[in-house]
């Protein structure tokens, strides 16, 4: 039904009720001109509105009634009961038409000429005879003058009968089945009692039934009819009689929103108080209060639900104006736009609705204005002439999801980038690093509009930022996905209601916090030793959640709480000190330090390190105990989702969930973006409510949303990728040695008695197999008492250990290896931690230990490649200007069964191409002097040489989404971060398979 008609119905029904009362008064005080004027105005309004809405039948009746009333008012006509009855009659007719209108959406067929004739007669001052009227107007038989009194009685009875139903605003048609079975049953159960005469008790019953019935308009008429027939039976079955229950008027009651708000606030407080009581009783155990409290609990819950319901409105209310807007828009802009709306009936809290109304309108407008192209452009782009904007609303786990999608041209990324630069929102450098998803997010930044010209519709630079702010203010989120040329999808996620939310209570660093349950998707318990453990990529904690890498944020860290948590990446403390201090009395701290050092290390290493450290700390038994206790501690990961970005929040403990009422924080704390409010818990303590949105923002995560999470399976932190984690150790000479941490699988500690020999080779039993051991150099002597650390290098099921004197530290450095291969086993030296450090060539040791393990590869002559080919080996060309990485990766690739050729730059590679050497796959570094990897790929691809079709995999320490994108467009099939051995191998395998 048209919104306007609904509005009209609600309003008219209200005024008609007033007329009924007023007319009765008028009859008693015929000379009350004020009253007359009022009645006249009401009827006049009805008439006017009817004309406007094109309801001719209604208009006519109202018009003629108005005429009569006009004469009353002017004093031309005496107010006599007959005339009043006539007016009543017309009012009843109006009511009848209104009722039909409400049911069917249009005026019923019918003839009003009789009543009009009577009105006209009255207008002329004639007295209408009742008989005449009865004959002329059989339908109005019930409206005979002698029945006026009865009418009045019914009138008076009516308020009692009135069905209390709160409709805050006009309601649109509701789907059947909205009323619960219970309610319907109650209503129908009450109905049979209505047979025959209506007695007060029945009315009461009926009233109750109605009260419990959530008047769902389409459902109600049925009940109404039952009631109508029953109640109407004593005044005849005339369908025009006024005893009919008016679905809209009687079942809705306009209530000031403030009243509802107050109610809600009070209910919220009640809920809180109840929670407090429950908590007390729970602590007390069984008391006399238990049972009544449980009852109270139920009643409060129901009350809460009921009050919430009064605030629910279909989202269609917020959409009602959209078709018109789109229509005007398409005319104004000469576009063809089709608005497709789904899920209008989805109900949500009116407060929420109010908040999203404007953002929604704005977004739809934007879609029409910026998104949908002109018909000609659309046809040129191979699309249908008419663009479609689709609105869809639905419930999803306590949220309302609203999707606004269009099949327009999508966001123009170049333009956004330009604008970002022009507005100084990011530097060109930063921009280069950004993924298109990140770039797109900029449209939510203040003062950002990419519309070329400011139209009356949009492009005034106020917009999406306000949209986002508004939505986020109510705890919602907006997500944007746009494909240039294909369209954009905005997904708005908003909570059903704002007042009372379920929250998960967690603890970090001894403080409790509440996390709204809505943003929590799951909870994971992690321990250091179990299957579920936190792993680290360059100190950034991550968690494997069903094959996806979940970035983690430590709550105590993000809140800067003096942390009890073991997650605090501070790597200034050299390892040695750690061990020493651990040996000392400051046990607590030592453990702390240990923990801190741990996260710099990879998962496997961590475990081993813990072990070796433990051994170091063995001196004090007590110490060890404590450490164990500490390390065995479980942590929890609260997996939160903010606008499609999933991340984990590491907390120390998780308590119950509790219903909380979000209260705004004090003004002076408003600047804290990590909190969305505070509340009082059941136990009376104040607790801060975390804003997952803020946490995601604070941890820098939200900007990292990748367009496609499967792209790499890994989320890379742009800044940390530039550095390399190195494990520093001593081998007894004066130069510290360094090895990329990523190559080290574990750290072990070896005691002399554990060393075994097999055909002259040092071995140790390790995980049920024999692992070859190599002392780093002759200067490494096995300490009788404490043993020595062993760096374990592993690949698949094979591993080997290098014995060193001691582990110094783990650092994150930008390494710049100066080649100096004068000494075997060393790649060269670099300045690390301010000291010259030898960078170890692990491949040398690996080869040394087991000649068959890693094939001779380093400088394999090209000719051999052909032989390998025959044996089914895939030939890999590895191009990297850094000998360090060449040497590091060669064994990795060789061991995986590839024939590896290494070159130090594209220039050499191009030469090789000319020579006619072919490869199955090319793995190339990106950052290289002269010709960089992007350029190299373009050259290979565009020049149509021998390698034009050879798949290429990019290898880079800059694996930001932006880089990846650039790499892909240059012709790489895959883009892998350096040191990510596994990914590299799988990327190569995948790329080769895909060939």
């Amino acid at each position, binding site marked *: 039904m048209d919104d306007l008609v609904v509005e009209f119905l609600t309003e008219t029904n209200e005024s008609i009720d007033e007329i009924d009362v007023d007319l009765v008064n008028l009859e008693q005080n015929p000379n009350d001109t004020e009253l007359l004027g009022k009645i006249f105005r009401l009827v006049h309004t009805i008439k006017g509105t009817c004309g406007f809405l094109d309801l001719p039948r209604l208009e006519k009746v109202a018009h003629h009634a108005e005429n009569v009333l006009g004469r009353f008012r002017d004093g031309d006509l005496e107010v006599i009961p007959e005339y009043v009855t006539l007016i009543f009659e017309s009012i009843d007719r109006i009511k009848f038409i209104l009722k039909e209108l409400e049911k069917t959406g249009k005026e019923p067929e019918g003839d009003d000429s009789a009543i009009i004739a009577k009105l006209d007669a009255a207008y002329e001052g004639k007295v209408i005879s009742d008989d005449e009227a009865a004959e002329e107007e059989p339908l109005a038989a019930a409206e005979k003058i002698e029945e006026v009194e009865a009418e009045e009685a019914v009138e008076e009875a009516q308020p009692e009968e009135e069905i209390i139903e709160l409709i805050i605003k006009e309601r649109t048609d509701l789907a059947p089945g909205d009323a619960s079975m219970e309610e319907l049953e109650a209503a129908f159960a009450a109905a049979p009692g209505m047979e025959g005469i209506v007695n007060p008790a029945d009315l009461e019953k009926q009233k109750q039934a109605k009260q419990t019935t959530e008047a769902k308009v389409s459902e109600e008429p049925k009940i109404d009819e039952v009631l109508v027939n029953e109640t109407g039976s004593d005044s005849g079955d005339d369908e025009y009689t006024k005893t009919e229950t008016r679905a809209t008027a009687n079942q809705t009651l306009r209530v000031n929103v403030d009243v509802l708000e107050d109610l809600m606030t009070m209910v919220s407080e009640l809920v809180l*108080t109840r929670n407090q009581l429950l908590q007390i009783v729970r602590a007390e155990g069984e008391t006399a209060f238990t049972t009544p409290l449980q009852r109270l609990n139920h009643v409060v819950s129901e009350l809460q639900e009921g009050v919430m319901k009064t605030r629910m409105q279909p989202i269609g209310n917020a959409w009602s104006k959209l078709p018109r807007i789109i229509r005007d828009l398409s005319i104004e802009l000469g576009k063809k736009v089709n608005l497709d709306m789904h899920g209008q009936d989805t109900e949500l809290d009116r407060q929420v609705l109010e908040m999203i109304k404007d953002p929604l309108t704005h977004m739809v407008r934007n879609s029409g204005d910026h998104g949908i192209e002109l018909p000609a452009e659309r046809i040129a782009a191979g699309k249908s002439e008419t663009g479609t904007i689709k609105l869809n609303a639905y419930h999803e786990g306590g949220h309302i999801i609203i999707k606004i999608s269009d099949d327009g041209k999508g966001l123009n990324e170049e333009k956004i980038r330009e604008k970002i630069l022009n507005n100084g929102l990011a530097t060109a450098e930063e921009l280069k690093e950004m993924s298109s998803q990140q770039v797109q997010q900029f449209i939510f930044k203040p003062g950002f509009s990419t519309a070329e010209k400011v139209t009356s519709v949009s492009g005034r630079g106020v917009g999406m930022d306000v949209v986002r702010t508004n939505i986020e203010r109510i705890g919602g989120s907006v997500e944007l996905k746009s494909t240039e040329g294909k369209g954009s999808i905005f997904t708005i996620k908003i909570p059903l209601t704002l007042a009372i939310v379920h929250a998960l209570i967690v603890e970090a660093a001894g403080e409790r916090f509440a996390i709204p349950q809505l943003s929590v998707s799951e909870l994971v318990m992690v321990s250091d030793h179990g299957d579920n453990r936190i792993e680290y990529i360059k100190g950034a904690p991550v968690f494997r959640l069903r094959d996806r890498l979940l970035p983690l944020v430590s709550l105590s860290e993000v809140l800067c709480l003096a942390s009890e948590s073991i997650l605090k990446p501070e790597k200034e403390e050299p390892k040695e000190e750690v061990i020493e201090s651990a040996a000392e009395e400051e046990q607590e701290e030592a453990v702390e330090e240990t923990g801190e050092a741990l996260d710099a290390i990879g998962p496997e290493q961590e475990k081993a390190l813990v072990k070796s450290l433990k051994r170091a700390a063995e001196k004090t038994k007590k110490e060890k105990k404590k450490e164990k206790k500490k390390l065995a501690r479980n942590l929890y990961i609260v997996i939160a989702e903010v606008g499609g970005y999933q991340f984990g929040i590491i907390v120390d403990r998780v308590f119950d969930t509790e219903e909380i009422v979000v209260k705004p924080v004090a*003004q002076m*704390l408003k*600047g*804290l973006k990590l909190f969305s409010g*505070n509340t*009082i818990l059941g136990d*009376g*303590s104040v607790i*801060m409510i975390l804003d997952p949105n803020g946490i995601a923002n604070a941890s820098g995560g939200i900007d990292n949303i990748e367009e496609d999470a499967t792209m790499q399976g890994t989320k890379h932190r742009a800044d940390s990728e530039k550095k390399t984690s190195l494990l520093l150790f001593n081998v007894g000479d004066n130069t510290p040695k360094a090895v990329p941490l990523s190559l080290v699988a574990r750290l072990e500690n070896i005691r002399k008695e554990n060393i075994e020999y097999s055909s002259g080779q040092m071995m140790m039993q390790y995980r049920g197999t024999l692992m070859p051991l190599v002392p780093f150099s002759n200067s490494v002597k096995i300490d009788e008492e404490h043993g020595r650390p062993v760096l374990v290098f592993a690949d698949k099921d094979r591993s080997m250990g290098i014995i060193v004197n001691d582990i110094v530290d783990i650092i994150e450095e930008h390494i710049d290896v100066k080649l100096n291969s004068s000494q075997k086993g060393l790649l060269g030296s670099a300045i690390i931690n301010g000291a010259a450090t030898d960078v170890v060539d692990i491949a040398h040791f690996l080869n040394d230990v087991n000649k068959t393990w890693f094939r001779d590869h380093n400088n394999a002559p090209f000719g051999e490649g052909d032989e390998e080919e025959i044996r089914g080996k895939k030939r890999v060309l590895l191009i990297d200007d850094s000998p360090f990485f060449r040497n590091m990766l060669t064994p990795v690739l060789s061991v995986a069964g590839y024939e590896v050729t290494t070159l130090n730059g594209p220039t050499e590679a191009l030469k090789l191409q000319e020579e006619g050497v072919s490869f199955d796959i090319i793995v190339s570094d990106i950052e290289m002097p002269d010709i960089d990897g992007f350029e190299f790929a373009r050259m290979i691809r565009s020049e149509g040489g021998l390698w034009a079709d050879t798949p290429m995999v990019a290898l880079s320490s800059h694996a930001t989404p932006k880089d990846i994108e650039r790499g892909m467009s240059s012709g790489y099939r895959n883009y892998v971060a350096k040191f990510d051995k596994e990914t590299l191998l799988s990327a190569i395998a995948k790329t080769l398979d895909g060939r």
Partner: protein
Amino acid sequence: MSEERSSKEMNNESRDYLTVMIAGQRFGIPVLQVQDVLREQRVTRIPLASKEVAGSLNLRGRIVTAIDVRKRLGLPEKDDGLPSMSVVVEHKNELFSLIIDSVGDVVSFKDKYYESNPGTLDPLWRNISTGIYQMENELLVIMDVSRLLEDIGSYT
């Protein structure tokens, strides 16, 4: 002396102040602004808030922000081991609990004993004080509650 006063009009109206002690200095808080006096309370820390914010607490169902007045005044932390107290004031419809050392009497002063802040007063103090009352044996620094509270949070 009183003739030199310019800002305050001369009259004999008296004003009531709740006196509180902070690091040996007596302060006066306009009694009309005082809602409550509390013993030491357990407060919930608010991470990332400015250092003057000690936390928040529940006062009969209302959330009160606790302010460490010593920190606000640039004073060292209390180290006498005695429990602190707090004075609850309302400011812009929000409640604040001002944590002070101890609470003294309510005193009533005539305006004529009022003196504006000496120019040599610590700027931080000058900023939160409306003036000084001369008591018999000591001086009473009148605390401007809104000024005391307003600057908090503007920096972190």
